[in-house]
């Protein structure tokens, strides 16, 4: 796909081009927004705000980079801003180590589906969920996460380790339940 041509058309306020750009990235970006939020309605709100930012800042996009990565970055930033602004996420977003979860260095095979895994990630406390998404999926370093979320690098690292351990335990539990269910059905 010729992203540069598409971007240029969008900058000329070509509605068809804008719609095409939106359609091309919307479903993938909604997946990202979904991972960061707790409901589909919230995810759609983030998606909407994210795309508004994309179109309003499209002139800043450097043609040399990957458009998808640029849009993705905007979506992640929008999601984090959204979480910070929401009253109901405030409590969960505190990164204090008040409730410690055991750290695990296990590396299990993930035998569950994409949506099941996404649901497990979304069940993490918002602070864990955010840091896990940023580090494990988006590939941000703990220094970057600390800068974005306004926390120490160490806090980010420890929060991530606990989030990872919690998620692995849920994945294993899920796998066992699936297995039990499977044998029970047999």
């Amino acid at each position: 796909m010729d992203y540069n041509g598409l971007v240029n058309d969008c900058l000329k306020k070509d509605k068809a081009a804008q719609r095409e750009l939106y359609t091309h990235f919307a479903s993938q970006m909604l997946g990202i927004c979904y991972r960061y939020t707790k409901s589909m309605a919230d995810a759609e709100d983030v998606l909407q705000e994210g795309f508004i930012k994309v179109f309003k800042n499209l002139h800043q996009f450097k043609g040399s980079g990957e458009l998808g990565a640029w849009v993705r970055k905007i979506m992640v930033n929008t999601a984090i801003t959204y979480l910070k602004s929401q009253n109901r996420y405030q409590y969960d977003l505190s990164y204090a180590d008040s409730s410690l979860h055991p750290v695990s260095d296990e590396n299990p095979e993930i035998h569950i589906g994409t949506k099941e895994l996404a649901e497990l990630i979304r069940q993490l406390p918002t602070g864990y969920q955010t840091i896990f998404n940023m580090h494990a999926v988006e590939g941000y370093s703990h220094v970057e996460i600390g800068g974005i979320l306004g926390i120490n690098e160490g806090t980010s690292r420890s929060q991530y380790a606990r989030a990872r351990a919690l998620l692995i335990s849920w994945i294993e539990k899920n796998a066992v339940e699936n297995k039990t269910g499977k044998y029970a059905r047999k």
Partner: protein
Amino acid sequence: MLLKIKRANMHENEFEKQVREKMEELNFIPSDAVWESVDKKINNEKKRRRPIFWLFLFVGLMTAGAGYYFISGKKNSLLAINDRLQRQIKDDKKNAHNLYQSEKTGEYKKGILENNQYEMEMEKAKNAGIGSNLPQQIRKKESVVDDNKSDGMYGTETGQQKKSAVKAGNKIQSTIENKKADDNVNKLLLNGNQEGQDVLPHIVKGEGNISKKPDHKTGNVINKDLPVDAAIKTDSAIKKKQIPVQDNIPKNDSTDKQRPLTKNMQKIHSSWAIGYTAMAGISNMSERLFQPGSYANGAYYSSNVAIPSPLTHLPSKINMGFSWGAGIFMNKKLSKKFSWNAGLHYQYYSTHINIGNYVDSVRYIYQLSSNAGGAYQAARVAGYYNDSSYNNFTNKYHFVELPLSLSFILNKNLKKPLAWDAALSFSYLVRSNVLQFDPISGVYYKNDAMINKMQANISTGFMLGIYTRNNELQLGPQIQYGLTSILKKSAGNPQHLFFAGLKVLYIPHKK
């Protein structure tokens, strides 16, 4: 040891790699509402011009136009009458002067000829319909001309010369006296009009010569056929009509210059005057006077009733919005210090809240209901807004108001009077898009049944008056507070509309 760390990192990367690969596959198709909202925002879709705005504008312009037409039409008809009267008075003076001159020089014939010419002119004017509007005493001028004719006839006979001489002497005397009287009338008209005094009492008392020696032969405006009182009344009618056309009367410039502007302005409208008003400022919700509504006790949330637990959603904070209004009013000065206004006013109020996307589907919400004894009751809504904070929503209120205000001038500076005013207004909510919040399901929905459409407001402020020629402009700060709650008692905590801003009044006066 290093090998162990490296292996752990490798394992970590393997887990993250699996997560990343799976999450890359995570896709959802968004609802159409998302694109519609994005499209609307990025392309700055022009807001539909609301017909109600144009309706009010139309009504306002029509009212203003009708008011102007009424005032200017009345003024023009008065001006036309006065113009004719002034011309007649001038002609009378001229004729009187000619007569005096002719008698002085013995040129009776010339005077007769002139008077005949005048008679013909009057006849023409009569036929043109001008005479019908003139007061009787001016039309009686014709009899003066008849007498002059007869005087001329007698003047040729020798036996009547003495009589004629006596008559001529009387005529000259009375002409001079009446000329003086005319001058006095004009002077008094000028001075009296400027100072707001009635000129006639002076004349009746003998300061002028009219009532002393009424002589119709000299072209004086007083008719001897009428009783003095009637003549005065008729004369008063002329003078009253003369007031707005002072420019047509020869003026004493020095007197005019001495006339103080403030007194003139003070006198400008002692009767009803039409004025226009405009207001602009900010509006907000307040729980009580000077206590702004917060999100915890906003118009969309009730804190004085038991809320089913757990309370999962909090409403948006309420932020102030823009407010403006315009209207027309009638102004009446009650005294030097007091005046009052009554009129018709359109006022727009707004507040801002942050909400989520609109969802066009039926769902059940919980709202306070008086039927359920003030408890929450489930109700069905056709559409709702999610509880998010990414869309700025403007709650709009369109009111028609009937304000009654009393104004009191605080200072003695008549050029720039500072007035304090207080008003009571009754208003009706014509249209609104205001949203209510359901703290249980966390959605915003529209329900006009929860709103008090009839409102009573109080307002106060200071107005600084500025006079420009014949117009009056007043401007100053105003605050307004809704005495009645915008929400019905059964719908939640009392919430009152509050306005603060600048008010401008414009009163165009008759020239």
